[in-house]
């Protein structure tokens, strides 16, 4: 299990980066995974079409919260189009741990919520595999 709950993940879980509310947010969305109770609120400040800062609050398992923390660093400075097109593999590579299909949902919760926030704020497209849903609720 130490390969899963390795140091980097536990560090992000216990000391999340960019955690807390963003008072002057330009984009915001809420995501949840009702199966396990993971929950994140993502807020973004935009700077000339790029991610000026992403912050988040929420509660959930170590994987969901650590992955969202890592994401805040990963997307810093990306254009909104780049962020909206960021593949799930980007965050899974960052986590670099073996995940069962159930836990992959935890890992990509923050990323999906970020994409939703950008979609609602600046109209970037949602991932095609979402179909016609526009909320992040994985069951």
């Amino acid at each position, binding site marked *: *299990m130490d390969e*899963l*709950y390795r140091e980097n993940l*536990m560090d992000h879980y216990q000391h999340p980066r960019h955690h807390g509310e963003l008072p002057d947010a330009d984009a915001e969305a809420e995501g949840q995974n009702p199966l*396990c*109770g*993971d929950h994140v609120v993502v807020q973004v400040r935009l700077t000339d079409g790029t991610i000026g800062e992403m912050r988040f609050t929420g509660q*959930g*398992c*170590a994987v969901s919260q650590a992955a969202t923390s890592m994401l805040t660093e990963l997307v810093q400075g990306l254009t909104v189009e780049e962020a909206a097109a960021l593949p799930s593999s980007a965050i899974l590579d960052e986590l670099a741990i073996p995940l069962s299909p159930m836990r992959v949902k935890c890992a990509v919760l923050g990323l999906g919520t970020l994409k939703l926030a950008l979609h609602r704020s600046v109209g970037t497209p949602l991932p095609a595999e979402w179909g016609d849903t526009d909320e992040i609720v994985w069951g």
Partner: protein
Amino acid sequence: MAAAPTPLLDVELVRRDFPILERIIHGQPLAYLDSASTAQKPQQMLAAVTRFYSTSNANVHRGVYTLGVESTDAFEGARDAVARLLNARSRREVIFTRNTTEAINLVAKTYGLQHCGPGDIIVSTVLEHHANIVPWQVLAQATGATLRFLDCDDAGVLQLDALDGIAREGNVRIVAVTHQSNTLGVRPPLAQLVAWAHAQDAIVLLDAAQTVPNRPVDVQALGVDFLAFSGHKTLGPTGIGALWGREELLAGLEPFLTGGEMIRSVRLERTAWNTLPWKFEAGTPAFAEAVGLHAAIDYLEGVGLTAIDAHEQAITEYALARLQEVPKLRIIGPTSADLRGGVVSFVLDDVHPHDIAEILDRHAVCVRAGHHCTQPLIERLGLPATVRASFYLYTTTDEIDRLIVGLLDVRRIMGV
């Protein structure tokens, strides 16, 4: 700590009948503590299904040939076994369904639609599984009836003080309640609820998915009107469950699903329904699964449901005591085993239950983490989720000890 099992049940002997218990996961023997979700299967049940498919398989209620007669006898024999298990007055009161959920939907969509109207009251409880909430929400929406939920206290004990107020609001038609919470293991005061419901001329539907598998359940003694359970939690296959209903109630109901099997005669302009119980069994039924359920019931009766109940009680007492040794662990629900069945929910400091379940899996200890299909209850208790360990006739104190070892590892890894 003294070993708990009762001499009534030889757990090591029982375990030899369950092939899956020999599995090694992550280098350790399986410790399956999720029987409230689904039970593992004895070889006798597996053999009965294989034997049926190998020797007697044919569609039921049609074949004039030998195989068809055998399969019909086997299927209807399973119905007799369920009727006996529940002490039903008649085999006509036993309707096979896919599972508990379908059985409850059957009642909501037949009895419910025929008896509920605007201003009527349906009563359920905050303890219920989603299967005993959502069908009543849909029924209330369809009929204009009002759905009221009895609350529980912070330990999950059901509160009945709202009943008088509810009775004044309108005609209570249906009281839908669980025999035992699948999340907390607590048992509502059923006798009081049944007496109250019948004083209102309401019927009682009992969700017995968590109790038919592990203790004697007698529908006549309980005095309920409908009872639902699932085969897969009762050592049987998936895809088979049953609804028991009082015959005089079932006789007055329109069919649930329609098509083949549930008819007596079909003309292009009109159709006559079959008699009970087949009126409620449209299409080819899960007859091979029914054969498996029959074998599972035979197995349970062979071991003895009273002995299984006593074993679960002893294991639950042992688990409650050992869990309380784990620092920062909080048991949700009563900590006295006589108020509950073989299900224990807990949280460990602020470690998310998913993380706990994942680390326990590395110890080959299988527990469930989440809301256990009881979101309203989890919300009522002010929790995001819980870890749930549940026990059955094959659970040993050794497996409980391994759960404790795993939880201590969770504390180490998560730093709590």
